[in-house]
Each structure stands twice: as C-alpha cells, then as structure tokens.
C-alpha cells in the first residue's frame, strides 16, 4: 500500500513550507476565466505586436506565444539583432514566415490589425508608445516600472481610462500564491493594525570612465535615445545598463519598486493612493555615466501614520522583499521563494470566502488575455502601477532635493515646493510628446 502512498514526509513538508502550509495548498487550481486548451480559429485569436524585444520583451513574447488564443504578428525593436532574433522565434513557433518586423513603433501601431501591444522598452520609452497604442485602441501588457516620471504614469493611467483599455503591468508577483497569501493575511487583519512596512530592494552600482564611440550598425541609436537628452553612444549606456542612468531608468530603486513596493501597496489596499510625505537620502555615483542611486533609504508616510521604509536590502537592516509589521509586533514577510510570519502559525491560516480574497491568477499573461476578452480590470491596471511607481518617483525627488516633500495623493500635487513640482515631469526631445 505504501508504495502507492508516494508522498514522503520530507516531500510533503517541503511542499507545505514552500506553499505556506495548508493555507495555499488548494484543491482547485485557478482556471482561465474563459476556458483553457483549445486553439480558436485565426479570426478569433488575439493579435499581438511586441515593441522592445530584448531580454524581458522576448520573455513576454514567448509567454504570449504559449497561449492558445493568441497570434503574435509583428515585432519591433531599434536593434536589428534583437528584431531578427524575435522574428525568428515567432516564425519558428508558427512554422511560417509571417511575422512582420519594424524598427519604428509608429509603423507597427499604424497596422490597424493589432488587439494587444506587449511593451518592454527601456523606461524612457514606456509612455509614448503606450499612450499612442491605447489611443489607437490597443490593450497593453507593459513592463514595470510603468513610467519614467510621475507625469507619464498619470498620462498612461488617464489614457487607459479615456479609451476603456485593458492594461496589465509586468508586476507579476501579484500572480504568485505566496505574495497573494501574504497580502491576504495583511488585508484581513491577521497581524493587526499595520504601523510600519519595509521594502528591501537591490543595491545599485557605479562605473568608471567609458569609451564613447560610434553606435553599432544594427542599432538606431538616435531612436533609442528618443525623448531623452542627447548623449554620445557607449556600450555601457544602452541594453540592460540603461537602468543605472536617470535619463533612461531609475536604478535598482525604480526597477524593483514595481515589484516589492507594488506588493506593499497590494497588501494595504493602496492601489489608488500614495504617501503624503516622503524624505530620505541616497548615494549617487559621481564618476562615470551611471548616475542612479546605489544605496538609498527613504520613508514614505501614509495617511493614518503608516511608515513605509524603502531601502536597498541590508541598509538599516531591511531585508529584501516586503515586510508588514503590526502594532503588537506581529509581522508577515514575503520575497521570491520566501514567506515568513511571526508567529509562524499565521502561515497555516486559511482565508475564507467571506473575507477579503485577492484575485487568484491563472498566470499573469493568461489573466491579461482573459481580461482583454471580458474587459474586467487586471490585477495591475495602469492606475495601480502608477501608484506603485509613485513611491519610487517621489522618493527620487526627495532624495535628489535633499528635503522632505509633501504630496497630495488625491490631486497628485506636491505641496508648497515649486522646484519639486517641476520634477514631476520630464521634457522631451522633439518630435516626441505625450
């Protein structure tokens, strides 16, 4: 008999611990809202175009290729190597040569036969194609952080609402059971009234002198710079490394705030609001072209007095991930591959149907596609992503100015600080505009 009882103690315990004990061991697997499995006729498939097909963009594209009811029909990148690689992946998948390629995203958007845009460009290239796509009637799966500055996030959230579009941000931790369960514990008062939240993100790094040179022939560098200020080409400026430069990204802070900061907001039910006061400091490298903060710590205070401490992990003993702390010392901490609580028995709790149950995702990309059909909001619509990114943007402004700023999350205005207010939006090089 025991041969058929194939669950060893170790194995069972391992699974239970990994899944948060009984709490997340579900007997019913979340299903796609509209059914699974069968591949619909071509006319009923969701047509997808992908802009930005480097590492992350290709990953998203492959996730969409794996869905039965989609058809990736076009890809776009300013780097022809990326473009050809993506095209080949798509054509291999479908066994044809139909995938169209573009180096100018405006031409892709002008096709008129796309339902969905998958957007994974550098941060400074999020807002313009996203708003154009939504104004052209496309739904968008866009990478985090949603925006390069606060005003761009607001424009994107407004464009979504104005056009009635569906938006899913690549904040995929919301589709993972550990993160959802942690947030459900917090939302349902299992650790009491929250007084402090800790958000630990990676530490950044600087760089020494670089060698400026002509851009490689496969890269349309002027287009890559796009709305950002002009700067000479060097290898350390573009692919991947753009993240460490404030003209194109926001360092580790902005790269990760759309994950762990987003989870902090989800746990608190703060998808449509933000802090009221922000102050902190960061170390910004002076040598080389990478100018984003390497170490940082700021405090975002919310209405009701809750303090969110955002720091590079290890700074002020803040752990990587998200930790909510209740007034009586109980806490819940979650990170990728880790879920802990004090007391640990919290992890055996189950959330009942009459409690706050957060969305059980059938998969981040799958959920988005379901919402494209049902027109229900995703777990990470543009407004939500904008609010999560706002934590980081406001933290950046406070750190750069070296002073406390006060923020009205309802009107999205900085109070009594014109200089800080001007930093909410970034001017663009011609011809780019929102």
């Amino acid at each position, binding site marked *: 008999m025991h041969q058929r009882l194939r669950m060893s103690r170790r194995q069972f315990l391992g699974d239970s611990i990994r899944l948060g004990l009984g709490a997340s061991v579900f007997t019913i697997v979340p299903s796609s809202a509209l059914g699974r499995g069968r591949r619909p006729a071509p006319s009923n498939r969701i047509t997808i175009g992908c802009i930005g097909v480097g590492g992350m963009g290709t990953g998203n594209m492959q996730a969409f290729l794996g869905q039965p009811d989609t058809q990736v029909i076009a890809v776009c990148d300013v780097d022809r190597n990326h473009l050809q690689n993506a095209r080949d992946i798509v054509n291999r998948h479908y066994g044809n040569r139909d995938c169209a390629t573009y180096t100018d995203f405006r031409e892709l958007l002008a096709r008129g036969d796309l339902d969905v845009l998958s957007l994974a460009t550098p941060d400074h290239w999020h807002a313009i194609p996203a708003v154009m796509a939504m104004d052209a009637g496309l739904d968008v799966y866009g990478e985090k952080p949603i925006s390069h500055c606060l005003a761009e996030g607001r424009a994107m959230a407004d464009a979504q609402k104005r056009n*009635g579009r569906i938006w899913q941000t690549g904040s995929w931790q919301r589709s993972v059971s550990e993160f959802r369960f942690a947030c459900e514990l917090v939302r349902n008062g299992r650790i009491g009234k929250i007084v402090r939240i800790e958000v630990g993100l990676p530490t950044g790094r600087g760089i020494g002198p670089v060698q400026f040179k002509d851009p490689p022939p496969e890269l349309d560098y002027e287009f890559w710079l796009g709305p950002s200020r002009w700067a000479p080409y060097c290898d350390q400026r573009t692919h991947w490394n753009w993240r460490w430069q404030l003209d194109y990204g926001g360092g580790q802070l902005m790269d990760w705030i759309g994950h762990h900061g987003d989870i902090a907001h989800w746990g608190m039910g703060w998808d449509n609001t933000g802090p009221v006061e922000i102050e902190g400091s960061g170390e910004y490298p002076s040598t080389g072209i990478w100018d984003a903060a390497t170490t940082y710590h700021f405090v975002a205070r919310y209405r009701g007095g809750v303090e969110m401490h955002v720091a590079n992990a290890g700074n002020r003993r803040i752990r990587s991930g998200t930790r909510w702390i209740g007034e009586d010392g109980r806490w819940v901490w979650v990170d990728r591959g880790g879920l802990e609580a004090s007391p640990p028995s919290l992890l055996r709790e189950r959330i009942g149907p009459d409690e706050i149950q957060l969305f059980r995702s059938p998969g981040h990309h799958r959920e988005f596609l379901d919402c494209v059909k049902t027109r229900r909001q995703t777990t990470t619509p543009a407004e939500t992503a904008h609010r999560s990114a706002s934590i980081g943007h406001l933290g950046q402004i406070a750190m750069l100015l070296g*002073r406390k700023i006060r923020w009205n999350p309802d009107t999205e205005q900085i109070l009594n600080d014109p200089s800080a207010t001007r930093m909410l939006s970034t001017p663009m090089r011609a011809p780019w505009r929102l």
Partner: protein
Amino acid sequence: MGLASVFALLGVLGALAYGQEDPYRGIRGYDFQNRQTVDAIHARIRNAGKDAAKLAAIETQLIAVLKDPAATFAGKQEVCKFLWSMGTARSVPALEAMLLADQRQADAARYALEHIPGPEASAALRRALTKTQGLSRVGVANSLGVRRDALAVPLLSRLVANEDRETRTAAIRALGRIGTVEAFQTLRRLRGRDITAAQALLKCSMALVKAGKSSIAMPTIATLTAAGYPKVIRVAALRALASFGSSAVGALATKMLTDPDPYIQRGAAMVCVQFATAPSTKKIAQLWSKLPANAKVVLLSGWADRKEPLKARVALAAAQNESGAVQIAAIRAAARCAGATAVPVLAAIAAKNGDASAVAREALAAMPGQAAAAAIVRLSAAGTVGERAALMAVLAERPGKASLEALVAGARTADEAVAAAALRGLQAVGSAEQVPAMTSVLSATSHDSVREAAARAIVACIQRSPDRSAATAQIIRELESSARSARIAMLGVLAEVGGPASLEELRKAAMSSDAEIKRAAIQGLAETWSDASARPILLDIARTDSQRTSRVLALRGYLRLVAQDAGMSPDDKVAAVEAALKIAERPEEKRQALGVLRDCRTERSVVLATQLLEDKQVFAEAAETILDLAVPQNRNNRDLPAVQGSAVATALDKIIALADSDALKDRARKLK
C-alpha cells in the same frame, strides 16, 4: 594601461580638482563623462534648499555658462537640467538664444523653458514658433502645448494645415491639450475624420466640459460617437459622455452594443457596466437574445460584482442556457451576484466535465455569504453523486467547522467517488481532530481508492498536528482490530509519520506470521522510514530473517538510511557499510554499498572497495569508486579532497593487474 586610459584617468583627476575648486568653471568643460562638477553644482542647489537668494546666485552662475561660447554642449545641457527645476525668468533670454540655435541646443533649452513659470518663458516659446523650422518648431509647439499657453492658439492654428506632417500633428495636439474655446473652434473647423484631429478635438472638448463649458463641448462629444468616426474615437467619446453624466448615454450605448464591430460592442458593453442605470439594464435584459457574444461576455463579467436581482436572473439563465465563453462568464457572475440560489445551478454544472465544470467549482469555492455556505453544505449531503463529489473539493476551499463536518460526513458515505473526494479535501484542510474518523473509514472501506485517500489524508493531518504522537496513537489503537488490508494501509501511514511508537509497531509487524503484514512493515521501514532509528531493526532483519526477499529489502533500506544520514561521520558510515557488506549476497546491494563509499572519502573506504575488486560482478563499480576516491572532486559546489595513503596505491595496482579494460588501467596508471 594604454595611453587612452592614462588620459582618461588624468581627465578624471583634473575634473575632480577642477570641480572642487569651481564647479561653474568645471562644467564648461564637461564631456558627458565625469560627473564630479555636475554633482558639485547639484549639491549647492540642494544645500540652498528654498533660499531664494542662494538659488538666484546659483542661477546667475548657470546663465553665465549658457552664454559662454566656449562651454561644451554637454555642460550647457546639464545647466538646462538644473534650470528645469530652479530656473526663473532671468534665465529665459539665454535659453531663448539656444532655442534658435541648432536642434540639440533647442531641445536642451526647452528642457528648462517648458517648466520655468511665468509669461516670459511662454513668450519666448511663442516667438520661437515663428522663427524656427523642422524639429525645432515641432519641439516648441509641443512645449507650448505642455504649458497650455492660450496665447499660442492663433500661432498654432496657423500650423494645423502645414505641409509638414510632424508640424501639423504637433500643432493639432498642442491645441487639444491647451483646451480653450479658441483651440476648440480651430479643431472643430478641421472637420476631418483623421484620428489625430478627432482625438485632439475630443481632448479639447473634455477639457472644456471640465472647465464648465458643457454647452459648447457636449454636443461635439456626442457627434464623435457617430458611425464614420474611427472606432476608438467613438468608444472614447461614449465613455466621455458617460463620465460627464450625459442622459444620452443609455440609449447610445445600448444601440452600440449591436454594432457590427466587436471593438464597439465591447466598448459599449463596458460603458453599460460602468455607468449603468436601472432602465438601461432592463433594456439590455430585454435585448439579451439579440446581443452578440462579445457584448454578453463583457456585460456578465462586469455584473459579477453587482448584486441586483435582474442581473442575477440574467446570469443564472445564461449559466444554464449559454455555452462557451458566455456560459463561463455567466457562471462567475451568478456566483457573485445571485447568492444561494446559484448553488444548485452551479453544482449541477460542476458535476459535469469540462471547462465550465472547473470554473463552477472555483466560483462555488469563492462564493461569499452565510446563505451560500449553508446551501453548499446542504447540497453536499443531498445532491447527486456527481454534485456531492464536486462539492467536496469546494468545501476544502471553504475553511470552517461546517465545511470540515461536511467533509467528514462525505468521507463516511458509501459512495466511492464522494468518499475519495472528501478525503482529498481533508488531506488539504483536515487536522488531527479528524484522524479518528478517517481511521474508521480506512478500516471499514472496501474500496482501494478510498483506503489510499484516507491514508494520505491521515498522514497529512498527523504531519500538520503539533502533537504527532497523540495522533499516531489513534492509528495504533485501531491497528490490531482492523482487517488485513486496513492494517497494511495503517503500517504505511506509520512509516510515513515516524516516531518511536510507530517504529515499535512496525518492528513487531515485521515479525508477523502474516506474510503480507510482515512485507508491508519491512517495506515501510526500508523504503519510507526517514531517520536513523530504523537502522538497527533493518540490519537485524537483514542478518536473521529466514526469507531472502525480506533480508534483501531490509539491507537495501539499511544502506538507504546510512546514505541519507547527514549527521553520520564518514568513519561511522564506512563501518556501517562494512557491516552490510558482510551479509550482502547480491551484486545489487554491493553496488549500493559502493555508492555510499564514494561519499566517504577515507582510506578505509578504499580498502573496502578494493576487497570488492575480487568480485567480478561488481569489479567495474568498485574500480570506479576507487578512481573517484583517488582524485579530488567537486560535488554540489563543495571541494572534496583525494584520499591519500598506501591503500590507494595498493588499490590502483590491483586495478592495473585485474582490469580487462585498457581505459581503466590507463586511468589507474596515471594516478600512480
């Protein structure tokens, strides 16, 4: 270090010194590389805080950089970035000069000008609009739009028909953003159904409504919903009307639900969901059979959170009568808005196979409300077999006393499918409290699937229990009085949950005269037991049992426990292997022993492996073990040293002497 690197380093050092002395001098030579001077100025601005006098002094220095023809473009561009946040009207003349220079300088100047408050910056941009061409002019138009400069409207209006597309587009979009009556009039005069113009007109109209000028703008927004305008504009205009509370929305949206274009259908349905009124819902219900599936899916999905009787009725009917995506959306909607009345309908769907069944189970599991909970519990006892089995999975997702009681009741039923499903549920959510009931089921059932499910559930519940020994005792109490098949299952459970009492029961059962009981006990110890405590019993069985199969099984189990014991020293492991080898009869167990020796990097391991070279059946494995021990290894990122000593040389000589394979001989020779 090459010359270029030396120069680069000198440049860095120079800039460092330069920046520290006078950053305003330093920034004149900034070359996009070393940010020391940039940071020095930034620090001064930060330290000045909101002190107007200090900031003015800094601005004076920055203006001087802009005016300096020797300053680099990179330096001036950084200055413009500073002025972005702290520049005043005093900077405008210098920036205006840059606007009229080349494209790059114009872009840099706008970086500051776009944000500098006051009429001076707007005036400079307006002047530039008439003096610039190409992308510079496009940029200026964009900035005027960002500044919402009403005085720019006449100038921009002149550009809306410009032959250059970029200029034309920039002007139209700037007018849309400025949003004054004058801008609106220009845009309306365009009359084109081009999407850029229509979008600008819509945005401008929305701005006017927000500014209290509904009478001017609302009719235009309504016009934009008409067929002939781009579909995105039609839907956006409909949404705008709805958000402004237009009374025309209900009729317009209902009509657009049946538009031939799916985009319009879905867009209209979203509006119906988000801005619905009771009359419009009634109208939709009347039209239901004529609505396209796209619209139905969106309506039902949107209604899921609206507990209104009419919507609930439509959703319930659709769950029963529709198919595909509409039915699935209806199931979810019914579960959310129809309350307990949805339970029988959804349970009937859940009892079938297919996508709808899975969605129905999921929907039932998440149904809120006491009435729904009670209905699910009731039906879990009174429904059809299929419904009851489906509801067992649902109950497992709904924590609480009533659910557990219903699951226990389900486990006790005679129907195999229901009982097995209930036990699977208890496996997920049960506790030690349910162990006696499940043990009774395990004892009494004649179905293998139920027995197996009960055993799994009991193991899970005991493993979750804070007092495992008490929970285990319940099993042991039942053991003697149970039938053979149940006892076999219980022995499997004891082997899984472990503990001294379980070990003692398994030890006793391993000596049973009942061959099946005996085999189950030995198998439990040999294949499932997970700590060292069973080793002496297994070794004893391996030495003394009269049956060869029992001896082999026990020896294999013994070696498994030795191998996996992380707390045992290599010397102790080798001694344990030596004891096993003395009684090992078959090459299989000898090979297993060699596998343990490979991880014990001692000379005694080599000696034991060398002895096995005498056995032709395991010669190759013994030789490989020796060769492995004789060289350093890296396993799981851990460096393991080579075994040293005379035993290694002896072993290698023996391999060279006895091996048939030249390759083995060569490897041994190389290690000598």
